[in-house]
Protein backbone atom coordinates (compact mmCIF):
# COMPACT_ATOMS: atom_id res chain seq x y z
CA UNK A 1 0.00 0.00 0.00
CA UNK A 2 1.32 3.36 -0.95
CA UNK A 3 0.54 6.43 1.08
CA UNK A 4 0.93 9.81 -0.47
CA UNK A 5 1.96 12.53 1.89
CA UNK A 6 1.74 16.07 0.64
CA UNK A 7 4.77 17.82 2.02
CA UNK A 8 4.17 20.95 0.10
CA UNK A 9 3.28 23.98 2.29
CA UNK A 10 -0.08 25.56 1.57
CA UNK A 11 -0.13 28.84 -0.12
CA UNK A 12 0.45 31.71 2.21
CA UNK A 13 -2.76 33.59 2.92
CA UNK A 14 -2.77 37.34 2.91
CA UNK A 15 -2.81 38.76 6.54
CA UNK A 16 -4.61 42.06 7.07
CA UNK A 17 -2.45 44.06 9.46
CA UNK A 18 -3.91 47.00 11.41
CA UNK A 19 -2.79 50.31 10.19
CA UNK A 20 -1.21 52.80 12.61
CA UNK A 21 -4.22 55.10 12.51
CA UNK A 22 -6.62 52.26 13.23
CA UNK A 23 -4.53 51.09 16.13
CA UNK A 24 -4.43 54.59 17.59
CA UNK A 25 -8.17 55.01 17.11
CA UNK A 26 -8.88 51.63 18.68
CA UNK A 27 -6.64 52.38 21.65
CA UNK A 28 -8.16 55.79 22.14
CA UNK A 29 -11.66 54.38 21.86
CA UNK A 30 -10.88 51.76 24.48
CA UNK A 31 -9.54 54.42 26.80
CA UNK A 32 -12.55 56.61 26.21
CA UNK A 33 -14.89 53.70 26.75
CA UNK A 34 -13.37 52.74 30.07
CA UNK A 35 -13.32 56.35 31.21
CA UNK A 36 -16.93 56.73 30.14
CA UNK A 37 -17.89 53.61 32.09
CA UNK A 38 -16.10 54.96 35.14
CA UNK A 39 -17.83 58.33 34.83
CA UNK A 40 -21.22 56.69 34.39
CA UNK A 41 -20.64 54.51 37.43
CA UNK A 42 -19.55 57.53 39.45
CA UNK A 43 -22.68 59.36 38.35
CA UNK A 44 -24.90 56.42 39.32
CA UNK A 45 -23.13 56.24 42.65
CA UNK A 46 -23.80 59.93 43.26
CA UNK A 47 -27.43 59.44 42.30
CA UNK A 48 -27.73 56.57 44.78
CA UNK A 49 -26.08 58.70 47.41
CA UNK A 50 -28.55 61.48 46.79
CA UNK A 51 -31.49 59.08 46.96
CA UNK A 52 -30.09 57.55 50.13
CA UNK A 53 -29.87 60.97 51.77
CA UNK A 54 -33.39 61.79 50.69
CA UNK A 55 -34.80 58.51 52.05
CA UNK A 56 -32.91 58.88 55.30
CA UNK A 57 -34.39 62.32 55.69
CA UNK A 58 -37.85 60.92 55.07
CA UNK A 59 -37.25 58.14 57.60
CA UNK A 60 -36.13 60.70 60.16
CA UNK A 61 -39.20 62.81 59.48
CA UNK A 62 -41.45 59.79 59.92
CA UNK A 63 -39.66 58.85 63.14
CA UNK A 64 -40.03 62.37 64.45
CA UNK A 65 -43.68 62.25 63.55
CA UNK A 66 -44.19 58.96 65.38
CA UNK A 67 -42.35 60.05 68.48
CA UNK A 68 -43.73 63.54 68.38
CA UNK A 69 -46.74 65.18 69.95
CA UNK A 70 -49.15 63.84 67.31
CA UNK A 71 -49.05 60.34 68.66
CA UNK A 72 -47.92 61.04 72.22
CA UNK A 73 -51.49 60.57 73.39
CA UNK A 74 -51.56 57.09 71.90
CA UNK A 75 -48.28 56.17 73.54
CA UNK A 76 -49.51 57.61 76.81
CA UNK A 77 -52.78 55.72 76.53
CA UNK A 78 -51.06 52.42 75.80
CA UNK A 79 -48.63 52.95 78.66
CA UNK A 80 -51.52 53.59 81.00
CA UNK A 81 -53.25 50.45 79.80
CA UNK A 82 -50.04 48.49 80.37
CA UNK A 83 -49.70 49.92 83.85
CA UNK A 84 -53.31 49.19 84.71
CA UNK A 85 -52.78 45.67 83.45
CA UNK A 86 -50.05 45.35 86.06
CA UNK A 87 -52.11 46.99 88.80
CA UNK A 88 -55.27 44.94 88.26
CA UNK A 89 -53.90 41.56 89.40
CA UNK A 90 -53.67 43.01 92.92
CA UNK A 91 -57.22 44.28 92.76
CA UNK A 92 -59.35 42.40 95.26
CA UNK A 93 -63.05 41.88 95.68
CA UNK A 94 -63.02 41.67 99.41
CA UNK A 95 -66.79 41.55 99.69
CA UNK A 96 -66.77 38.30 97.70
CA UNK A 97 -64.17 36.87 100.04
CA UNK A 98 -66.08 37.89 103.19
CA UNK A 99 -69.38 36.54 101.91
CA UNK A 100 -67.82 33.23 100.96
CA UNK A 101 -65.72 32.97 104.08
CA UNK A 102 -68.69 33.69 106.33
CA UNK A 103 -70.25 30.43 105.24
CA UNK A 104 -67.41 28.55 106.89
CA UNK A 105 -67.77 30.12 110.32
CA UNK A 106 -69.74 28.02 112.75
CA UNK A 107 -73.03 29.73 113.78
CA UNK A 108 -72.18 29.41 117.49
CA UNK A 109 -68.98 31.34 116.97
CA UNK A 110 -68.90 35.10 116.45
CA UNK A 111 -66.05 37.44 115.67
CA UNK A 112 -64.94 40.51 117.55
CA UNK A 113 -62.47 41.62 114.92
CA UNK A 114 -61.17 40.63 111.52
CA UNK A 115 -57.93 42.03 110.18
CA UNK A 116 -56.52 41.41 106.75
CA UNK A 117 -53.24 42.50 105.25
CA UNK A 118 -52.62 42.15 101.52
CA UNK A 119 -48.93 41.53 102.09
CA UNK A 120 -48.97 37.81 102.69
CA UNK A 121 -52.77 37.65 102.57
CA UNK A 122 -52.87 37.15 106.31
CA UNK A 123 -56.16 37.19 108.13
CA UNK A 124 -56.37 37.52 111.88
CA UNK A 125 -59.67 36.55 113.45
CA UNK A 126 -60.52 37.35 117.02
CA UNK A 127 -63.80 36.19 118.48
CA UNK A 128 -65.62 34.16 121.02
CA UNK A 129 -67.02 30.68 121.12
CA UNK A 130 -69.37 29.18 123.72
CA UNK A 131 -67.00 26.30 124.44
CA UNK A 132 -63.77 24.65 123.41
CA UNK A 133 -65.84 22.02 121.66
CA UNK A 134 -67.50 24.69 119.54
CA UNK A 135 -64.11 26.25 118.85
CA UNK A 136 -62.65 22.96 117.68
CA UNK A 137 -65.65 22.41 115.42
CA UNK A 138 -65.22 25.97 114.13
CA UNK A 139 -61.59 25.20 113.27
CA UNK A 140 -62.64 22.03 111.45
CA UNK A 141 -65.19 23.97 109.43
CA UNK A 142 -62.77 26.81 108.65
CA UNK A 143 -60.27 24.29 107.31
CA UNK A 144 -62.86 23.30 104.72
CA UNK A 145 -62.74 26.78 103.20
CA UNK A 146 -61.38 26.06 99.70
CA UNK A 147 -59.14 29.14 99.44
CA UNK A 148 -57.41 28.58 102.74
CA UNK A 149 -53.63 28.19 102.51
CA UNK A 150 -52.99 27.72 106.22
CA UNK A 151 -54.71 28.20 109.55
CA UNK A 152 -53.39 28.37 113.07
CA UNK A 153 -55.12 28.76 116.41
CA UNK A 154 -52.98 31.36 118.10
CA UNK A 155 -54.61 31.34 121.51
CA UNK A 156 -57.86 30.50 123.26
CA UNK A 157 -58.85 31.25 126.81
CA UNK A 158 -61.89 31.43 128.97
CA UNK A 159 -63.47 34.84 129.12
CA UNK A 160 -66.80 36.26 130.19
CA UNK A 161 -69.27 36.30 127.33
CA UNK A 162 -71.69 39.12 126.55
CA UNK A 163 -74.67 37.38 128.09
CA UNK A 164 -72.83 36.96 131.36
CA UNK A 165 -71.90 33.33 130.88
CA UNK A 166 -68.32 32.15 130.43
CA UNK A 167 -67.15 31.69 126.88
CA UNK A 168 -63.92 31.11 125.04
CA UNK A 169 -62.14 34.00 123.43
CA UNK A 170 -59.74 33.04 120.68
CA UNK A 171 -57.38 34.34 118.06
CA UNK A 172 -56.88 32.56 114.76
CA UNK A 173 -54.29 33.39 112.14
CA UNK A 174 -54.99 32.27 108.61
CA UNK A 175 -53.47 32.73 105.21
CA UNK A 176 -55.78 32.69 102.22
CA UNK A 177 -55.03 32.20 98.56
CA UNK A 178 -55.21 35.15 96.13
CA UNK A 179 -58.05 33.46 94.30
CA UNK A 180 -60.24 34.14 97.32
CA UNK A 181 -60.57 37.77 96.22
CA UNK A 182 -61.49 37.04 92.63
CA UNK A 183 -64.70 38.40 91.24
CA UNK A 184 -66.98 35.40 90.86
Amino acid at each position, binding site marked *: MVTNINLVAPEEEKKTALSGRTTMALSFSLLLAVLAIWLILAQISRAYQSQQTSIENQIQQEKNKISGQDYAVLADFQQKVNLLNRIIPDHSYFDVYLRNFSQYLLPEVSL*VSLKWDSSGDKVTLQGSAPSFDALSKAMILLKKYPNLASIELKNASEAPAQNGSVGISFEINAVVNKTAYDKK
Partner: protein
Amino acid sequence: MIKKSIGLRILVLPLSLAVVVLIAVLYVQPAFSEIMKRKKSLDESRKQLVSIQAQTAKLAQLKASWDSMEEKKIVTVALPVSEATDDFLGELYQKVTSSGVLLDSFSTAKSESSEASYLCSAQSQTAQGAEGMPSSSSSAPSGAAGSPGVAISSSASSACVQNFSASIGAKGNWDQIISLLKYTSGMNRIVNLKKVSISKGGATGTENNPNPDMLSVMLDFELFYTPQKSTGTLAVNDLLVLGNGFDKSALSKIKEIVSSAYEQPVVIQSGERNMFK
Protein backbone atom coordinates in the same frame (compact mmCIF):
# COMPACT_ATOMS: atom_id res chain seq x y z
CA MET B 1 12.70 55.30 10.85
CA ILE B 2 10.28 52.87 9.29
CA LYS B 3 11.19 50.24 11.88
CA LYS B 4 10.54 52.71 14.71
CA SER B 5 7.11 53.52 13.31
CA ILE B 6 6.25 49.84 13.11
CA GLY B 7 7.45 49.32 16.72
CA LEU B 8 5.26 52.12 18.05
CA ARG B 9 2.29 50.82 16.14
CA ILE B 10 2.80 47.42 17.72
CA LEU B 11 3.20 48.86 21.24
CA VAL B 12 0.28 51.32 21.26
CA LEU B 13 -2.48 48.73 21.44
CA PRO B 14 -0.97 46.64 24.28
CA LEU B 15 -0.09 49.80 26.16
CA SER B 16 -3.57 51.19 25.83
CA LEU B 17 -5.01 47.84 26.85
CA ALA B 18 -2.77 47.88 29.90
CA VAL B 19 -3.97 51.39 30.78
CA VAL B 20 -7.58 50.33 30.30
CA VAL B 21 -7.08 47.35 32.59
CA LEU B 22 -5.34 49.61 35.10
CA ILE B 23 -8.23 52.09 35.07
CA ALA B 24 -10.73 49.26 35.31
CA VAL B 25 -8.96 47.77 38.32
CA LEU B 26 -8.20 51.02 40.11
CA TYR B 27 -11.35 53.02 39.41
CA VAL B 28 -14.13 51.15 37.65
CA GLN B 29 -14.18 48.09 39.87
CA PRO B 30 -14.23 50.07 43.18
CA ALA B 31 -16.88 52.36 41.72
CA PHE B 32 -18.94 49.35 40.77
CA SER B 33 -18.50 47.84 44.23
CA GLU B 34 -19.51 51.14 45.76
CA ILE B 35 -22.61 51.23 43.60
CA MET B 36 -23.61 47.73 44.63
CA LYS B 37 -23.08 48.63 48.26
CA ARG B 38 -25.11 51.80 47.95
CA LYS B 39 -27.81 50.00 46.03
CA LYS B 40 -28.09 47.44 48.80
CA SER B 41 -28.16 50.16 51.42
CA LEU B 42 -30.72 52.07 49.38
CA ASP B 43 -32.94 49.01 49.11
CA GLU B 44 -32.75 48.52 52.87
CA SER B 45 -33.55 52.17 53.48
CA ARG B 46 -36.49 51.95 51.09
CA LYS B 47 -37.81 48.93 52.93
CA GLN B 48 -37.35 50.75 56.22
CA LEU B 49 -39.16 53.77 54.85
CA VAL B 50 -42.04 51.65 53.60
CA SER B 51 -42.23 49.93 56.96
CA ILE B 52 -42.14 53.16 58.93
CA GLN B 53 -44.69 54.74 56.60
CA ALA B 54 -46.93 51.74 57.19
CA GLN B 55 -46.44 52.28 60.92
CA THR B 56 -47.36 55.93 60.60
CA ALA B 57 -50.43 55.01 58.58
CA LYS B 58 -51.43 52.48 61.21
CA LEU B 59 -50.85 55.01 63.95
CA ALA B 60 -53.00 57.51 62.11
CA GLN B 61 -55.68 54.86 61.88
CA LEU B 62 -55.26 54.06 65.57
CA LYS B 63 -55.48 57.73 66.43
CA ALA B 64 -58.71 58.02 64.49
CA SER B 65 -60.19 55.02 66.30
CA TRP B 66 -58.79 56.22 69.63
CA ASP B 67 -60.57 59.54 69.24
CA SER B 68 -63.89 57.74 69.32
CA MET B 69 -62.99 55.12 71.93
CA GLU B 70 -65.14 54.96 75.02
CA GLU B 71 -62.25 53.36 76.92
CA LYS B 72 -60.29 56.60 76.56
CA LYS B 73 -62.20 58.23 79.37
CA ILE B 74 -62.27 55.07 81.45
CA VAL B 75 -58.48 54.75 81.34
CA THR B 76 -57.96 58.45 82.01
CA VAL B 77 -60.09 58.23 85.13
CA ALA B 78 -58.73 54.83 86.18
CA LEU B 79 -55.16 56.12 86.15
CA PRO B 80 -55.15 59.92 86.42
CA VAL B 81 -52.21 62.20 85.70
CA SER B 82 -52.14 63.59 89.21
CA GLU B 83 -53.04 62.47 92.70
CA ALA B 84 -56.56 63.83 92.18
CA THR B 85 -57.42 63.17 95.79
CA ASP B 86 -60.48 65.38 95.52
CA ASP B 87 -61.92 63.24 92.71
CA PHE B 88 -61.15 60.10 94.66
CA LEU B 89 -62.80 61.44 97.78
CA GLY B 90 -65.82 62.58 95.77
CA GLU B 91 -66.32 59.17 94.24
CA LEU B 92 -65.58 57.43 97.52
CA TYR B 93 -68.17 59.52 99.27
CA GLN B 94 -70.73 58.43 96.67
CA LYS B 95 -69.92 54.81 97.44
CA VAL B 96 -70.09 55.46 101.16
CA THR B 97 -73.49 57.11 100.75
CA SER B 98 -74.75 54.28 98.56
CA SER B 99 -73.65 51.64 101.04
CA GLY B 100 -75.14 53.45 104.00
CA VAL B 101 -72.09 53.47 106.26
CA LEU B 102 -71.03 56.52 108.23
CA LEU B 103 -67.66 57.82 107.12
CA ASP B 104 -65.77 59.14 110.09
CA SER B 105 -62.21 59.48 108.87
CA PHE B 106 -60.26 59.91 105.67
CA SER B 107 -56.57 60.42 105.18
CA THR B 108 -53.93 60.03 102.51
CA ALA B 109 -50.23 59.46 102.87
CA LYS B 110 -47.17 58.86 100.75
CA SER B 111 -44.39 56.85 102.24
CA GLU B 112 -40.78 57.32 101.25
CA SER B 113 -40.41 53.72 100.22
CA SER B 114 -43.55 53.41 98.08
CA GLU B 115 -42.25 53.80 94.56
CA ALA B 116 -44.40 51.22 92.78
CA SER B 117 -41.15 50.09 91.21
CA TYR B 118 -42.63 46.62 90.79
CA LEU B 119 -44.94 48.13 88.20
CA CYS B 120 -42.30 50.07 86.35
CA SER B 121 -39.42 47.65 85.88
CA ALA B 122 -40.52 46.25 82.52
CA GLN B 123 -42.15 49.49 81.48
CA SER B 124 -38.95 51.47 81.73
CA GLN B 125 -37.17 48.96 79.53
CA THR B 126 -39.46 49.68 76.62
CA ALA B 127 -39.66 53.40 77.05
CA GLN B 128 -37.01 55.36 75.24
CA GLY B 129 -35.90 58.57 76.77
CA ALA B 130 -36.47 59.41 80.36
CA GLU B 131 -39.57 61.33 81.10
CA GLY B 132 -39.38 64.07 83.66
CA MET B 133 -41.39 63.51 86.75
CA PRO B 134 -43.56 66.23 88.16
CA SER B 135 -42.94 67.49 91.62
CA SER B 136 -45.10 65.71 94.12
CA SER B 137 -45.49 68.57 96.52
CA SER B 138 -49.18 69.02 96.13
CA SER B 139 -50.95 70.48 99.05
CA ALA B 140 -53.21 68.30 101.08
CA PRO B 141 -56.86 68.56 100.23
CA SER B 142 -59.31 68.69 103.03
CA GLY B 143 -60.96 65.47 104.04
CA ALA B 144 -64.60 64.64 104.55
CA ALA B 145 -66.71 66.52 106.97
CA GLY B 146 -65.70 65.69 110.46
CA SER B 147 -62.63 63.86 109.30
CA PRO B 148 -59.19 64.44 110.68
CA GLY B 149 -56.75 66.53 108.68
CA VAL B 150 -55.33 64.94 105.56
CA ALA B 151 -51.63 64.43 105.72
CA ILE B 152 -49.70 64.07 102.48
CA SER B 153 -45.97 63.87 102.57
CA SER B 154 -43.73 63.95 99.53
CA SER B 155 -42.25 60.67 98.50
CA ALA B 156 -39.87 59.19 96.05
CA SER B 157 -41.17 58.98 92.53
CA SER B 158 -40.83 56.17 90.04
CA ALA B 159 -40.15 56.36 86.34
CA CYS B 160 -43.64 55.51 85.23
CA VAL B 161 -46.15 55.46 88.04
CA GLN B 162 -46.49 56.93 91.46
CA ASN B 163 -48.59 55.65 94.27
CA PHE B 164 -49.90 56.77 97.58
CA SER B 165 -52.23 55.37 100.17
CA ALA B 166 -55.58 56.49 101.41
CA SER B 167 -57.32 55.30 104.54
CA ILE B 168 -60.92 55.55 105.52
CA GLY B 169 -62.69 54.75 108.70
CA ALA B 170 -66.41 54.06 108.73
CA LYS B 171 -69.16 52.60 110.83
CA GLY B 172 -72.05 50.50 109.73
CA ASN B 173 -73.68 47.13 110.02
CA TRP B 174 -72.48 43.97 108.29
CA ASP B 175 -74.52 44.41 105.13
CA GLN B 176 -73.51 48.04 104.80
CA ILE B 177 -69.84 47.16 105.14
CA ILE B 178 -70.19 44.40 102.56
CA SER B 179 -71.82 46.94 100.23
CA LEU B 180 -69.03 49.45 100.88
CA LEU B 181 -66.41 46.84 100.00
CA LYS B 182 -68.33 45.91 96.88
CA TYR B 183 -68.68 49.50 95.72
CA THR B 184 -65.09 50.44 96.44
CA SER B 185 -63.87 47.44 94.44
CA GLY B 186 -65.69 48.83 91.41
CA MET B 187 -64.59 52.43 91.54
CA ASN B 188 -63.86 54.33 88.37
CA ARG B 189 -60.39 55.01 89.66
CA ILE B 190 -58.59 51.71 90.08
CA VAL B 191 -57.65 51.31 93.73
CA ASN B 192 -56.17 48.27 95.40
CA LEU B 193 -57.19 47.33 98.89
CA LYS B 194 -54.14 46.89 101.11
CA LYS B 195 -55.56 46.42 104.60
CA VAL B 196 -58.95 45.75 106.10
CA SER B 197 -59.87 45.89 109.73
CA ILE B 198 -63.40 45.19 110.90
CA SER B 199 -64.18 45.21 114.58
CA LYS B 200 -67.22 44.93 116.76
CA GLY B 201 -68.35 47.44 119.31
CA GLY B 202 -66.84 50.41 117.62
CA ALA B 203 -70.04 52.37 117.69
CA THR B 204 -73.34 52.63 119.40
CA GLY B 205 -76.78 53.55 118.17
CA THR B 206 -77.58 55.97 120.93
CA GLU B 207 -76.13 56.34 124.38
CA ASN B 208 -79.11 54.64 125.98
CA ASN B 209 -79.71 52.13 123.25
CA PRO B 210 -76.43 50.74 121.95
CA ASN B 211 -76.63 49.10 118.58
CA PRO B 212 -74.95 45.69 118.87
CA ASP B 213 -74.88 45.24 115.11
CA MET B 214 -72.74 48.28 114.49
CA LEU B 215 -69.22 47.54 113.29
CA SER B 216 -66.16 49.71 112.71
CA VAL B 217 -64.20 49.29 109.53
CA MET B 218 -60.85 50.68 108.49
CA LEU B 219 -59.82 50.34 104.86
CA ASP B 220 -56.39 51.14 103.44
CA PHE B 221 -56.23 51.66 99.70
CA GLU B 222 -53.32 52.02 97.33
CA LEU B 223 -53.90 54.63 94.63
CA PHE B 224 -51.90 55.23 91.48
CA TYR B 225 -51.28 58.06 89.09
CA THR B 226 -48.90 58.71 86.25
CA PRO B 227 -47.81 62.01 84.76
CA GLN B 228 -48.83 62.93 81.22
CA LYS B 229 -46.19 62.20 78.58
CA SER B 230 -45.28 65.09 76.34
CA THR B 231 -43.78 62.97 73.58
CA GLY B 232 -44.43 59.49 72.34
CA THR B 233 -41.84 56.80 72.41
CA LEU B 234 -40.92 54.70 69.45
CA ALA B 235 -40.88 51.59 71.59
CA VAL B 236 -44.46 51.99 72.68
CA ASN B 237 -45.60 52.86 69.20
CA ASP B 238 -43.79 49.80 67.94
CA LEU B 239 -45.87 47.79 70.34
CA LEU B 240 -48.99 49.37 68.95
CA VAL B 241 -48.01 48.78 65.37
CA LEU B 242 -46.59 45.30 65.69
CA GLY B 243 -49.47 44.11 67.81
CA ASN B 244 -53.14 44.46 67.09
CA GLY B 245 -53.46 48.05 68.22
CA PHE B 246 -54.26 48.67 71.86
CA ASP B 247 -54.14 45.86 74.37
CA LYS B 248 -57.77 44.74 74.15
CA SER B 249 -57.49 42.12 76.88
CA ALA B 250 -56.16 44.69 79.34
CA LEU B 251 -58.91 47.10 78.35
CA SER B 252 -61.57 44.48 78.93
CA LYS B 253 -60.10 43.74 82.37
CA ILE B 254 -60.30 47.43 83.24
CA LYS B 255 -63.87 47.65 82.00
CA GLU B 256 -64.75 44.57 84.02
CA ILE B 257 -63.77 46.43 87.18
CA VAL B 258 -65.02 49.87 86.33
CA SER B 259 -68.31 48.72 84.86
CA SER B 260 -69.35 47.44 88.25
CA ALA B 261 -69.06 50.89 89.78
CA TYR B 262 -72.70 51.81 89.68
CA GLU B 263 -74.35 48.48 90.36
CA GLN B 264 -77.12 48.51 92.87
CA PRO B 265 -76.59 46.80 96.23
CA VAL B 266 -77.50 43.14 96.26
CA VAL B 267 -79.29 41.32 99.04
CA ILE B 268 -77.08 38.88 100.84
CA GLN B 269 -77.47 35.38 99.50
CA SER B 270 -78.97 32.55 101.52
CA GLY B 271 -76.47 30.48 103.41
CA GLU B 272 -74.34 33.44 104.28
CA ARG B 273 -74.35 35.13 107.60
CA ASN B 274 -73.10 38.10 109.55
CA MET B 275 -69.93 36.80 111.10
CA PHE B 276 -70.17 39.34 113.92
CA LYS B 277 -73.64 38.42 115.05
